[in-house]
């Protein structure tokens, strides 16, 4: 384990340069270049903010702003996007880099870290754009922002734990990637991002909370919409879930490590 971490640490330059390379090559042949990095998330945020603010004008209880609903969706969305981005990409991270894994000897764990890194950059850009738009809507939630790193940390941990676990299995059983993509779509609608948890009947609330993303997304909504600290009680279960999957994924990774290049 210690050896694995040391190996990855010695590859930190490669990880950083891979993240840079990814962005560079994505925009290198376009005129606007790096500007696209900002324009994409901005467009996404604007669509939600402008369109939803016109269609859904219903006020949310406890929020003064008439833009409450778009802000609600955006708050949950920014967290969910980070989650699904990392999870979706780590499912195929080994398959996509098959050529590299077969030809070069380097710590394989660098690959999921690159995924995390570039997803995190995307997240930060989306977040900043969102905050800018929030400003225009007259909503500047800064009282609980210091809780955000914890939420981001949990989101990344959960996404990479699940993603790595199934990503390793996906090398051997390719159907897993397909199934997980579908599950991810259902998962989105099982998480209170678009709707409020209050529309779910009380007796099914416990079911909703079984979804580890529920607590995390509610945390984002607390910080970004309600401008208050996340409810730590509902973060305990997601934290344990994250820990479990991180351990599971490392176990399965260690077991699969030797045979992975054989079947790629």
């Amino acid at each position, binding site marked *: 384990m210690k050896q694995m971490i040391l190996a990855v640490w*010695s*590859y930190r*330059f*490669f990880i950083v*340069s*891979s993240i840079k*390379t990814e962005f*560079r*090559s994505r925009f*290198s*042949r376009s005129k606007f270049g790096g500007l696209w990095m900002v324009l994409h998330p901005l467009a996404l945020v604007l669509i939600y903010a402008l369109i939803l603010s016109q269609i859904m004008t219903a006020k949310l209880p406890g929020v003064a702003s008439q833009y409450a609903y778009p802000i609600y969706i955006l708050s949950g969305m920014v967290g969910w996007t980070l989650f699904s981005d990392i999870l979706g990409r780590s499912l195929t991270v080994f398959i996509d880099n098959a*050529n*590299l*894994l*077969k*030809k*070069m*000897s*380097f710590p394989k764990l660098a690959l999921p870290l690159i995924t995390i890194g570039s997803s995190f950059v995307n997240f930060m850009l989306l977040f900043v754009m969102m905050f800018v738009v929030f400003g225009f809507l007259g909503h500047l939630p800064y009282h609980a922002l210091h809780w955000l790193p914890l939420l981001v940390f949990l989101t990344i941990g959960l996404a990479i734990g699940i993603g790595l676990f199934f990503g390793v*299995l996906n090398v*051997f*059983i390719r159907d897993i990637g397909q199934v997980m993509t579908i599950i991810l779509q259902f998962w989105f609608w099982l998480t209170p991002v678009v709707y409020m948890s209050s529309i779910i009947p009380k007796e099914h609330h416990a079911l909703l909370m079984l979804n580890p993303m529920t607590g995390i997304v509610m945390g984002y909504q607390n910080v970004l919409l309600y401008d208050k600290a996340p409810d730590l009680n509902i973060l305990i279960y997601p934290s344990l879930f994250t820990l479990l999957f991180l351990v599971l994924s490392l176990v*399965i990774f260690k*077991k*699969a*490590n*030797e*045979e992975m*290049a*054989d079947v790629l």
Partner: protein
Amino acid sequence: MSSVLEVKNISKSFKDYSSEFKRILSWFGFNFKPAEEHQILRHINFSIAPGEAVGIVGQNGAGKSTLLKIITGTLKPSEGSVQIDGRISAILELGMGFNPDLTGRQNTYHSAGLMGYTVAQIDAIIDELEAFAEIGEYFDQPVRTYSSGMQLRVAFGVVTAYRPEILIVDEALSVGDAYFQHKSLNRIREFQEQGTTLLLVSHDRGAIQAICDRAILLEKGAVIKDGNPEEVMDFYNALIAEKENSKIEQVATEDGRVETTSGTGEAVVADIGLFNHKNERIEYISVGEEVKLKVIVDVKDTIPQLVVGFMIKDRLGQSIFGTNTHHYDKIIESVSAGDKLEISFEFYMNLGVGSYSVAVALHADDTHIGANYEWKDNALVFNVINTSKNEFVGSSWIDQKIEVKYVK
């Protein structure tokens, strides 16, 4: 003896399970038998000392790539272990991990990172690398605009940026132009002098014999020959021609040569010798002397067509001259068991001073890849000495008329 690379009893098999679930469960101690096991490598053992240059040869599918991948660490052996003392650099596939949209410089940083170098380490050699690659301003252009030779230059520069303890070179090098091939070969030799061990994978007999001081022959996943490159390459050559009922034999002669014989045996070489114009058997020949190479063939079985060929090789085993009766339209047809033939090749020994060996081959077509009755390497050794010509160097004698004129 200390060794820089120690391969201990390596075996590798790829397992196929009837269901991948069984594979996954087998990691956790469940005892599932694989439906099929392809054994790629069997009990490979060798150790290589610092500074040695070792050629790895074998037919396609013999397991060379798998062995290299295990040595570099991308594949894990099913059994056995590899011990490496120091850094290992592999030129397996050049431009691995190069991104076409990045410049040569950016790719250099990126792919050196992939090899585990830090930014500071690359900073230290980037200028030298740029100079080595000699691709001018292209170094700051996207790699997609490069020719494959230019990519090779940058890639080779990256792989050899720092001297590794072990350098693995696949056939990749043949892509470059002659100038760069020399340049890269020089760098490899420099490394070797400083103690780098070289592993060269090639089908090119010339390259193996010129660079390596040892060769390892892989066949069907096992080491079947490990030794002096010439001897191993002779064996390999015989192996390519190996057909059913064919056998390969290597015997050491009194004078320390290793004579490799292979073939199906329908016709065999009973005797071979060089004769001068007085019809005396000779071993020392003067430059330019007229000689006759006589091959006596014993026919053991009726065969439709017989081609007799020979090849003269220098002491490094490099081919100097070879031809056969087919190329000179001397077709020998339908010989029957019990026949004895004498084939003589008459020529002037226009070779440079040195020791040479002769290989003979008896086969059915113009190459020995079809039916190979007998192939004998090192069947004869002779020496060329200069007794009558002007002083000269090199492997061939080219008669000169030299004229000197004052043009001004």
